[in-house]
């Protein structure tokens, strides 16, 4: 009886044991954004974020990613622009300090390529985003790298005098390269 119980518990735990739980190491990862300003691509990055990823390449459908970005940690390259985008017309970090992403579906695209869909919430608004990414196991760690494009107007980011897309384009490309260690 005891053996059977243990066996059942072991069977129940088996899927979890297969799916590695990863915690992203921020100083070996990068979360950047690229947008066009007066037609010229400009890159910036987010300095503060946390991400947890459950991923088993054999069962991508069971994968799960939760990412929280501390928007006050934005680095646009210009101090005055950092201050501007934290303000009311943009992220409004006083009221909405974080961007939150939670995956709802992950599927295999073949090879080491996968695709994650999920809900991205920013500035009080939620949109579905889909990001193709690659999975690269590195011993006890793994690298998840991919990108997707969002439209800032969908989140009400860049209002007032910034609402016109002529100076700052609507499309913002988000690129991530997460180096994550397993078993934390």
């Amino acid at each position, binding site marked *: 009886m005891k053996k059977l119980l243990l066996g059942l518990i072991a069977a129940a735990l088996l899927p979890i044991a297969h799916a590695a739980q990863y915690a992203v190491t921020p100083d070996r990862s990068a979360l950047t954004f690229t947008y066009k300003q*007066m*037609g010229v691509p400009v890159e910036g990055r987010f300095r503060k974020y946390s991400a947890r990823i459950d991923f088993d390449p054999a069962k991508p459908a069971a994968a799960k990613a939760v990412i929280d970005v501390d928007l006050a940690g934005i680095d646009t*390259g210009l101090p*005055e622009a950092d201050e*501007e985008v934290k303000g009311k017309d943009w992220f409004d970090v006083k009221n909405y300090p974080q961007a939150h992403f939670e995956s709802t579906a992950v599927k295999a695209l073949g090879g080491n390529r996968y695709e994650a869909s999920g809900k991205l919430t920013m500035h009080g608004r939620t949109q579905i985003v889909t990001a193709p990414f690659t999975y690269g196991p590195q011993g006890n760690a793994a690298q998840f790298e991919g990108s997707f494009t969002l439209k800032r107007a969908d989140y009400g980011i860049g209002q007032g005098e910034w609402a016109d897309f002529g100076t700052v384009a609507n499309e913002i490309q988000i690129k991530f390269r997460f180096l994550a260690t397993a078993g934390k």
Partner: protein
Amino acid sequence: MSAARYTPVAIGLHWIVAALLAALFGVGLYMHGLPLSPWKLKVYSWHKWAGVTAFALLLLRFAWRATHRPPALPAAMPAWQRGAAHAGHALLYVLMAAIPLTGWLMSSAKGFQTVWFGVLPIPDLLEKNKELGEVLGEVHEWLNYLLAAVVAGHAGAALKHHVVDRDDVLTRMLPRRSS
């Protein structure tokens, strides 16, 4: 009246560049103090496009100057004035080249590539580097003040030739009046 004049092309380029540099200088002073806004981003882009244009015109002037000898200075000019004139002109050319170059390098260091008229990307020679960008900004600014001082000397000398010496040094750089 001496017949030795600058060529119409040299005269045209001289005055187009003079007007462009005056506008760039004024806009540069104005835009620096603007609060961040779409207007500021637009003005910065226009300033950069105009700066690249000024540099392109400078290259044209170099090419023209290399193939067309400018008229000689008046024979009555003392040697020190000739020396000062040549040194002043050389300095003007050096500054007209150095100012757009520092502006371009500053843009690269600050992470904002220069794309001429939003169409032709000028390669970034420098990697993004905040500190270097700020140093280049200072250099760009002070070279401009130096250029303004040298231009003032240049214009003052031309007026002195016209009013005091009553020679043709100023008029030979003016467009010929149609009679």
